[in-house]
């Protein structure tokens, strides 16, 4: 280090610093361009009619209403299934599981599941839910597939939330003669709920943008009635967007962009709620 000329070393440091800075800016610039592109193209097509209409053969008449309803219903199923199983798993791993081989295996397994491509979950859902269980290309099959897909994220974020409850607080409860379950239900879970909720909303927002596995388990591309039960045909926002994007005529791109705006706004809302919950209800110890 000492041998080189100090001036040139300092200069080099400056040059590289601006290079590193520009790399960061480039990444951010892509985000800006993406938003600009989507909003500039979609804004003109975004109106109440677009939000409340069904798909149509003409771009001006097409709407995303069944996608919105389908996505929300799908998330309803996912929330019920993944939240119940995910929180139970997290409680088991954090509070009950002894440090044994089985729980270690479950932990490693969950970590690996989180890295499985989402489309593979689609194949799982296709074999099991669509064919073996005989559900067919229906809402329930999509919901169960999606629930398994986001389960690892729900488990990991719930584990983190449970872990953030300090040992002293648990000790206080055990010291009063509370049983393990009482301590979990009355002290640990209430204290962890904001964190768990935040994690769940973020997991759901991951699920609401997923497209590929739902294509595999047969979400319809265009439907003209709203799903009425768990066994209805359905579509979701990302699939409608995908289909519009894939059409060659330019007008459909604008429709797709309008759909993306709706999707992004919903995602933004979900994230805002998550952040709000975290800031408002999270106990700081």
């Amino acid at each position, binding site marked *: 280090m000492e041998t080189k000329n100090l001036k040139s070393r300092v200069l080099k440091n400056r040059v590289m610093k601006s290079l590193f800075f520009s790399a960061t800016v480039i*990444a951010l610039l*892509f985000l800006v361009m993406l938003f600009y592109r989507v909003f500039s193209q979609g804004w003109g097509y975004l109106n109440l009619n677009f939000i409340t209409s069904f798909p149509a053969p003409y771009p001006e008449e097409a709407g995303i209403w069944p996608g919105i309803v389908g996505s929300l219903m799908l998330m309803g199923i996912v929330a019920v299934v993944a939240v119940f199983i995910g929180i139970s798993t997290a409680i088991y791993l954090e509070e009950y*599981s002894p440090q044994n081989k089985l729980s270690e295996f479950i932990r490693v397994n969950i970590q690996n599941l989180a890295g499985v491509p989402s489309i593979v979950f*689609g194949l799982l859902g296709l074999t099991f839910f669509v064919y073996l269980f005989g559900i067919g290309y229906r809402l329930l099959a999509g919901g169960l597939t999606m629930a398994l897909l986001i389960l690892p994220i729900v488990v990991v974020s719930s584990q983190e939330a449970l872990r953030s409850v300090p040992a002293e607080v648990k000790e206080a409860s055990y010291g009063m003669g509370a049983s393990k379950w009482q301590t979990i239900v009355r002290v640990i879970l209430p204290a962890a709920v904001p964190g768990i909720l935040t994690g769940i909303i973020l997991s759901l927002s*991951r699920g609401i943008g997923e497209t590929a596995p739902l294509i595999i388990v047969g979400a319809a591309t265009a439907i003209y009635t709203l799903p009425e039960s768990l066994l209805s045909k359905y579509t979701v926002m990302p699939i409608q967007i995908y289909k519009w994007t894939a059409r060659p005529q330019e007008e459909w791109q604008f429709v797709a962009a309008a759909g993306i705006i709706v999707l992004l706004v919903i995602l933004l809302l979900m*994230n805002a709620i998550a952040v709000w919950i975290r800031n408002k209800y999270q106990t700081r110890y």
Partner: protein
Amino acid sequence: MKGVYVMSRISATSSQTVNVRSLLDEKRSKKLKVRKLENIIPYLLLLCALVSILTTAGILFTLLRETVGFFSEVSIIEFYTGTNWSPWSGDFGVLPLISGTLLITVIATVVAVPLGLMSAIFLSEYASESVRKTIKPILEILAGIPTVVYGFFALTFVTPILQSIIPELSIFNALSGGVVVGIMIVPMVASLSEDAMNAVPNSLREGAYALGGTRLEVAIKVVVPAALSGIIAAVVLAISRAIGETMIVTIAAGATPSLTMNPTDSVQTMTAFIVQAATGDTTFGSIIYYSLYAVGITLFVLTMIMNLLSQYISRKFREEY
């Protein structure tokens, strides 16, 4: 003795008195029953925890079962050595799909690694705490955008721009898809690498600064080498993500399986084929249906190897301090 004392004390403040002790003793027998029930709770919870294991088992079972079905009709050697993939006319050589996936992954890596690493160095070594705290969440927005949106961006924005630079570029091409997949994984590379660099003890940095090193020299000669295994683990994990990415390549890279390493060509990845075949009228039990799974298991194994490799490297990394 105590009871009397307590009662005399209470009568001063309230008309009624409660003897907590005797009340609690009353409740005791009821509690014992409840406690018996509580003993089965861990088993119920374990049952839920086993769902994740069942999921893995289910994935393996599905992929293996249908793949075995596939290989009873198409030879495994033909599948892994054949250079022609046109399943609707009976040609099942998977190499074009693998090369398509590989091409996309290479392009994505070329984009994501420099951008991600440089951002990580900037955030970890140069940026002030407040700058880092603003930029990191914004980068994470990039990671939270649905892939179908990236696909739209690739097809309608990146491709036209690239076409104006490279006129012979076809509408669907590996370059555009690969670049956008790269952008998608930048936050992952940046954020995980930055974590690794942050974990480098400050004492190492201070030692180098004491010798008169500039920030750049400290970053390149001390921090990056010390964090190298963490960085490599991040890159490997990001590559695994790129291999499994579906919507961007389905929308932007096309549906032409071809054994090419030319980024301006249209290609089809493994994931894009699975989408294509599942969207068409694929009947249960047909050869196309089975081929989905043969391709699926290839994809699964590839990403799994990457994930395990990444875990292995980062575990070694943690041992270093």
